[in-house]
């Protein structure tokens, strides 16, 4: 594995969101929230969502985790904001394909904007669950599930 692959994982966008996570605070007025846990890493985060009609109006998160999981959560809170529920769930699906390297359509990848920075994780199978943790938690919040553990929903056979 080369330094270039590592550069692709830890892109400046990721490092920046790791250093200064956006929307990093609790949200008392949230419509729903969920905890995400990654037992084998010790990562834990909470994601809060304020839904307004059919739209995801606002998101925030807090927790501890590696750069990948923190940046992924931070990017999520910005990217999903303002989307309809359907759009948000479609993006959740897309991101899973991105993390696992299944999304190869360059048009789709380009359309992701800053989220595309997370695609570098697909070369690191052991880190996929770091990237997907916040997304699992977001979906769990929308579904009213409360808690989610990456050991369960992991999209790769490698949990």
């Amino acid at each position, binding site marked *: 594995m080369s330094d270039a692959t590592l550069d692709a994982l830890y892109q400046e966008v990721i490092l920046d969101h790791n250093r200064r996570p956006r929307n990093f605070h609790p949200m008392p007025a949230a419509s729903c929230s969920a905890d995400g846990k990654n037992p084998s890493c010790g990562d834990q985060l909470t994601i809060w969502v304020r839904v307004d009609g059919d739209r995801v109006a606002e998101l925030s998160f807090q927790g501890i985790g590696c750069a990948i999981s923190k940046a992924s959560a931070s990017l999520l809170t910005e990217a999903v904001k303002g989307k309809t529920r359907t759009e948000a769930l479609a993006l959740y699906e897309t991101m899973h394909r991105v993390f696992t390297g299944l999304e190869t359509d360059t048009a789709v990848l380009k359309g992701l904007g800053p989220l595309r920075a997370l695609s570098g994780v697909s070369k690191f*199978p052991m880190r996929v669950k770091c990237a997907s943790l916040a997304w699992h938690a977001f979906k769990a919040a929308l579904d009213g599930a409360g808690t989610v553990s990456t050991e369960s929903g992991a999209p790769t056979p490698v949990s």
Partner: protein
Amino acid sequence: MSTGPLAPRADFPLLAASPDLVYLDSAATTQKPAVVLEAIRRYYTEANANPHRGAYALAAAATAAYETARHRVARFLGVADPDTLLFTRGSTEAMNLIATAWGRAQVGPGDNLVVTRMEHHANFVPWQQLALATGAEFRIAELGPAGTIDLEHLASLIDARTKVVAFGHVSNALGTIHPVTEIVRIARERSAGGAPLGPGLPPGALLVCDGAQAVPHLRCAVDALGVDAYAFSGHKIGGPMGIGGLVMRRGILEAMPPYQFGGDMIEWVEDRTSTWNVLPHKFEAGTPNVEGAVGLAAACDYVERLGLDAIRAHEVALTAEAMAALGAIGGVTLFGTPDATTRSGVVSFAIEGVHPHDVATTLDVAGVCVRAGHHCAQPLMRVMGVPATVRASFWVYSTSDDVARLAQAVRETQARFA
């Protein structure tokens, strides 16, 4: 009528190194193809690390090797959901896993556990001891004619309080292939008055099938068999020792308490309590036997390349030959069903006036390895009225020559002891 080897002897380093050896104890353990030994060496040379635990690429390779092996073995066994295939040391541990984790939680006084007279100790003693420990009743379905289980008697033992019906797929002592579908139908019907085995699962007894002697010889579509649990051993199908597995319904595994505690199987360990990892990890505490899994997967590849239908045809032919050759010798008694097509490659016999252990020793000196003893089936030997039998068993490398050498050695043994 002459049957050559299905697999070249050269594929098996031990057989290649001893060209005169007639190895007829494959039901105890098979010889290993070179590809299995090579897979083990390759794993340790290219991918060895502790799986599931490291973030580095070598650990990812070890994890992939282990989980890919699980997928491979599951596919071989016709198991759609690989996470319902737990790796164990072998069939014995598989049965003990069920008896400990499921049994201790589910069985109590007034319940009963049903086994058959033909079970290997591995599928007999765990249930006998579970019954003794929980106050449940232990029931044994007796034999029918010529190496079969009396299905009517079996049916009569099963009721709404039956918690487990444990039966073999193929008998290691007699080679009988049991009618699994029929047994499942009977057991489901008779135990239907019991509680469901779990959400969305059938009511009644847990149906446990011991596949140790079936997996090496038959196409075992485990999901399609309709049982709740299925056990097997890797070393009986060309794989390494120390690995085997248990296939069990997801709903039951998820509801069941764990079996052993330690690394990998936990989710969170608090000071007072713990929570468990998802399947299959919940039931695999500690560093797994990656080498074993990788070797077993290579054995599945090898066996599938030979073809399970070809293996079956090969063994039926040899079994028929052996039964004919031994049956033609005066003073030899054959045990089990007379029809080679209803048995796997196992021929159990006795020589009048010569104890089985003397037979095994005499045959050994003639270069023919057979097993003499109770075959871990003392309850069966008791009702058969013999202390032991001689057993010859075949696999893919066995040939008509082996059968001829066996028959010849039997005649020489008779001459010596006459």
